[in-house]
């Protein structure tokens, strides 16, 4: 069969030429001017994504610190893809020649090792938060691996569980929503819940379900659990606020918002609002704004020889940070200082939120 080959091909060439032109234009227009001054280090924040409130606040904190010290700041996101997260960091290391400070929330526990190894090799200073393998230690990568910061998931999980138990009067059934199964924080927070349950024999855990940190999944799961247990559910424990708010909306759809208290972790705005209206019993925040700044501050001070990581005590190399619990009692104040206005932190005291060395 012969057909309109000539015409078609001609069309294609035009289309192709057009596309190549467009590609060039697009790529070039996407290039902002390079601002990297020689000599000054680049501050780099590596987080999972910008699509969750927690990391969005983290980024604000990081930018606030960068502004404070007057340095260029770059945010990298892994979009939940470990390979991409690591590749981006390596690319930044190559680009800055190692003259950078990295504050990283590794996408997954395993990612920390290659990230730290790459920074060490390039001579960059790195602080990791939340996730690292148990056998990876800052002291083995002196001086570049400055610190690792975590928040005691077990105590957070336990703390919110206890507040929840108190709110529902010390007895009754609750349901729990956990984070992504393999995630360290999810596992620890669940342990905290279990510890609290062990101490409160009148509280019955009706079911533990996994909502992968997401409000949408929590929404569907909660409405299904409401069917299964109905009025038996007196309270909801969520391993983070996103899931907590999803559960809250499922309650609202049944007219149960405010009647069945919810607790969560992270202190996102929606949760703080819910605490104000009494729909949440409490939320706990690790203060991502502080986290965003402190990681960079530690690294920058080490890089500029303001302090020597190698001579710091172990509880400054791997430590638990301080968490703030937000309940009915302190929510108005927290709202004023942290939600309505940007908190004013200067990060000059590097160690003021250290609560102790990380358990091994």
């Amino acid at each position: 069969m012969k057909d309109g080959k000539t015409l078609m091909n001609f069309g294609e060439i035009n289309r192709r030429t057009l596309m190549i032109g467009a590609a060039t234009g697009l790529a070039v227009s996407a290039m902002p001017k390079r601002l990297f001054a020689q000599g000054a280090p680049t501050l780099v924040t590596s987080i999972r994504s910008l699509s969750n409130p927690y990391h969005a606040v983290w980024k604000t904190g990081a930018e606030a610190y960068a502004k404070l010290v007057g340095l260029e700041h770059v945010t990298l996101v892994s979009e939940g893809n470990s390979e991409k997260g690591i590749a981006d960091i390596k690319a930044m290391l190559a680009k800055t020649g190692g003259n950078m400070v990295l504050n990283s929330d590794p996408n997954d526990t395993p990612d920390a090792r290659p990230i730290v190894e790459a920074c060490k090799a390039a001579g960059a200073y790195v602080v990791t938060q939340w996730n690292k393998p148990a056998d990876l230690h800052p002291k083995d990568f002196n001086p570049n691996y400055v610190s690792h910061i975590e928040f005691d998931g077990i105590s957070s999980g336990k703390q919110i569980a206890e507040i929840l138990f108190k709110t529902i009067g010390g007895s009754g059934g609750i349901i729990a929503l956990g984070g992504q199964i393999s995630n360290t924080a999810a596992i620890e927070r669940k342990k905290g819940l279990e510890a609290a349950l062990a101490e409160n024999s009148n509280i019955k855990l009706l079911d533990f379900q996994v909502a992968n940190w997401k409000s949408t999944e929590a929404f569907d799961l909660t409405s299904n659990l409401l069917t299964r247990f109905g009025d038996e559910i007196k309270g909801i424990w969520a391993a983070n606020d996103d899931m907590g708010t999803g559960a809250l909306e499922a309650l609202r759809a049944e007219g149960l918002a405010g009647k069945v208290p919810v607790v969560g972790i992270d202190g996102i705005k929606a949760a703080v609002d819910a605490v104000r209206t009494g729909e949440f019993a409490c939320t706990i925040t690790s203060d991502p704004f502080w986290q965003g700044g402190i990681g960079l501050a530690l690294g920058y001070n080490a890089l500029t020889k303001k302090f020597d990581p190698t001579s710091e005590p172990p509880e400054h190399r791997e430590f638990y940070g301080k968490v703030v619990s937000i309940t009915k009692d302190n929510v108005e104040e927290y709202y004023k200082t942290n939600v309505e206005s940007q908190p004013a932190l200067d990060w000059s005291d590097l160690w003021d939120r250290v609560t102790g060395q990380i358990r091994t």
Partner: protein
Amino acid sequence: MTINSETMKPVTNLERTSAMDAVFARFFRGEAARRLRTFAPLIVLVVLCILITIANPNFIELRNLIRIANSAAVPLTLAMGMTFIILMGSIDLSVEGALSIAAMVLVLLATNDANANDYGWLAVVAAIAASTAMGVLNGIIQTVLRIPSFMATLGVWFIGLGISVFMLGGSAIRLMDNSIRSLALERFLGLPLAVWVAAAAFLLAIVIQYHTRLGRHILAIGGGEDVAELSGVNLQRVRITAFGVAGFFFGVAGVLAAAQLGQSNAVIADGRLFAAVTAVVVGGTALTGGEGGVLNTLVGVLIVTVLANGMVLLGISPYVQQTVQGLMIIAAVALSLDRLRLKIVK
């Protein structure tokens, strides 16, 4: 003269009757089998419901059925849009992008806790319009640049997601417009309004598929693009319109999702794509196009929703839920596929 000379008069009528007989014989044989196949997804659904009820009678409670309807509202609306695309033999991977765009536009224009806008129901219109526009963009990219829909929509997915992350600045913004929230919170005849909206979307999809030219032309393209073109079907226009219609449904789903969750964040649509495709395929619509329809999809959505509900009701461990769901999908599809017709399975 020897070429095909004599016409074989004696054969004429006889052969025709026998040919017709054969046609009828085949028709009826095929029909019976097809009828059974057509109802296979429905049978799967019924069996699933019965099994779950036996294990946990709470399942059949009115309250739970209402909850299932409520959980199915967003997936059903999404899957309606997806059905048209799959009927055409294309695929739309931009579901998550389109849905998050709609949810983003909605919360940013309606009363919210991030800016002072208060456009009320205009925001809903704008949200659906934005998502529809993305659908049209999909169609245009696919037809004008002649790129397989798989890639065109994959690209648009990233673009849509990027835009909504950018606009939301990464935070979750609360939807505070009470009239829009009432979609999720108010009830009419015992069912949340969201369910009525989804039902209306379903009816609209039925009308589009079975009662309009567009629906017919979508089916025609799925059945044979070249033939449809020769018959005077304007391929470009139908494709672009179909992607636009899909975008419209995604937009409605986005509005419902935001109303249900009371907020919008960029991950509001996470996991919706595969859920939608699964529902469409489990319902019996062929990925190759031309077979199936929105009625099938209704059953498919219910199967998937009931399964998720049932697994929680039965207290199946989160560790194995994924595995169970995978096995159930294989079983449902394997049972309902018309192997006779689908000689080639891709």
